[in-house]
């Protein structure tokens, strides 16, 4: 099939030399522009195959762990805000739209429009990272970390950094924003400098890069406003988590206590998992015993904690046991495994977003130079395919992580 197609262009081969863009068609493609395009496209599809398989390792970890320990996922997902995740989904879908639009424009040789749509795509990508930074910093503040460091506690610590204090934001958010801030300043300075030097192309490119980084801060501000609106204060989405968890614990104890609207009688005021810090030193599994011991201190809800640790082995035997009710002991100890998986999946995805922004910057650079022609737009399409794959992966990550029922 591919062979037939490439041969069919032989008739047109000579035409290419009449255009001024022959410079981008490599000599070794006897089939000319179309063969070059098709080769590159097959190459990028194969790369996407490796990407899918790359991510599939994490999907396997997710599926396997969820199938063995569904109760952990049911308890853990309350820490994730589905509206914030949904917002990021929409941002990413929109970026896919603008990317597809950019490809269309490149096929029609509208280089200015390509620059515009690629820029919008980059802004959306950075905005996604901004929202993610809000989510991450919020979780880190509350000790919602990977299994070995999981140390959940309610509320947020007072910010220590001067910026954190003056803006009332998490220290982690400040740390996460250091690099974007440096980039923003650097890009803006570069843009102005090139403007002064009269280099229009570089001026436009670095200006667009600065605007892109601005998208990150747009996401941060948007996410922060959302957190304020939904919680009316310092908290944010994960503040709802303890409500659910306390309600679950109370059910075992003395009936329903809370509505998940924020009015929490704090039955277990003690930070439940403070003793988790030492987990990194030993194997994951046998840590359970210490935690069981500790959870005895936390009140009546845990009076069966010891029993639970024995019963836990039975989870694997008897899956139905798992659904009888949330097991506070289980929550305190192993819910961090969900976040190990969560951070690996979303972290790897975020790295792909960053790589995508860099690739898109290359496309933007060349768009501003007006490189794309009817028979040479391959790079736009290839980067577009990669970008859509990143979107595809998020389309699956979102329900898997945020929408567990």
């Amino acid at each position, binding site marked *: 099939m591919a062979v037939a197609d490439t041969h069919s262009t032989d008739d047109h081969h000579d035409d290419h030399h009449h255009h001024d863009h022959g410079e981008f068609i490599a000599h070794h493609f006897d089939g000319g522009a179309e063969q070059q395009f098709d080769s590159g496209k097959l190459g990028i599809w194969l790369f996407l195959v490796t990407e899918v398989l790359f991510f599939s390792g994490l999907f396997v970890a997710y599926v396997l762990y969820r*199938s063995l320990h569904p109760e952990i996922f049911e308890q853990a997902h309350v820490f994730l805000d589905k509206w914030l995740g949904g917002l990021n989904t929409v941002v990413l879908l929109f970026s896919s739209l603008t990317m*597809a639009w950019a490809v*269309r424009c490149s*096929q029609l040789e509208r280089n200015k429009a390509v620059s515009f749509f690629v820029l919008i795509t980059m802004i959306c990508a950075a905005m996604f990272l901004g929202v993610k930074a809000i989510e991450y910093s919020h979780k880190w503040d509350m000790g919602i970390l990977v299994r070995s460091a999981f140390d959940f506690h309610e509320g947020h610590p007072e910010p220590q950094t001067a910026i954190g204090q003056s803006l009332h934001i998490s220290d982690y958010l400040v740390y996460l924003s250091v690099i974007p801030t440096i980039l923003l300043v650097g890009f803006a300075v570069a843009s102005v400098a090139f403007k002064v030097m009269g280099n229009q192309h570089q001026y436009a490119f670095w200006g667009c890069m600065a605007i892109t980084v601005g998208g990150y801060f747009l996401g941060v501000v948007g996410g922060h406003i959302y957190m304020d609106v939904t919680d009316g204060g310092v908290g944010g989405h994960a503040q709802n988590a303890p409500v659910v968890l306390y309600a679950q614990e109370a059910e075992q104890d003395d009936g329903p206590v809370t509505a998940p609207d924020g009015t929490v009688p704090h039955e277990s005021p003690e930070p439940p998992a*403070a003793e988790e*810090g030492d987990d990194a030193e030993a194997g994951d599994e046998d840590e359970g015993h210490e935690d069981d011991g500790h959870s005895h201190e936390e009140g009546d809800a845990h009076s069966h904690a010891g029993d639970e640790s024995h019963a836990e082995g039975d989870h694997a035997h008897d899956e139905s046991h798992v659904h009888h009710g949330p097991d506070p002991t289980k929550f305190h100890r192993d819910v961090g495994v969900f976040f190990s998986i969560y951070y690996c999946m979303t972290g790897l995805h975020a790295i792909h977003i960053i790589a995508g922004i860099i690739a898109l910057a290359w496309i933007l650079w060349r768009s501003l130079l007006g490189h794309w022609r009817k*028979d040479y737009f391959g790079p736009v399409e290839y980067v*577009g395919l990669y970008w859509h794959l990143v979107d*595809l992966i998020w389309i*699956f990550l979102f329900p898997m992580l945020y929408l567990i029922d």
Partner: protein
Amino acid sequence: MADNAHDHDHEHGIGHPAPVKLLLGVFFALIVLTILTVVTAGQFPKPFGLWIAMAFATAKAALVMLFFMHMFWDKPFNILAFMSSLLFVALFIGMTLMDSSHYKVDQDSFPRGEDPVPVTTTDSGG
């Protein structure tokens, strides 16, 4: 297929510019599906919720692949290459899940199933 692309081009261009209306239509369909996914989350009885959510996700993925990724107009070999990866992912997940029952015994007999061993590292917590 690439042959289709030639019909639409004025010259010998090799691309198939997707109509703007189609792109916008796909985008709005994706948004609607996303909203449906979020709104219906947790509305279904236990085993179905996950599958319904994944069905929505698969529908969205199909839209993105067909139209944003131009699979609708792409060469069959490229589609075959990409789809084969999904086959192997299915094998990967399926085989691992089938295998997981084989070490349930090991899970159950793992130290945590026994009485607490005298580990005294808990003091460092905090």
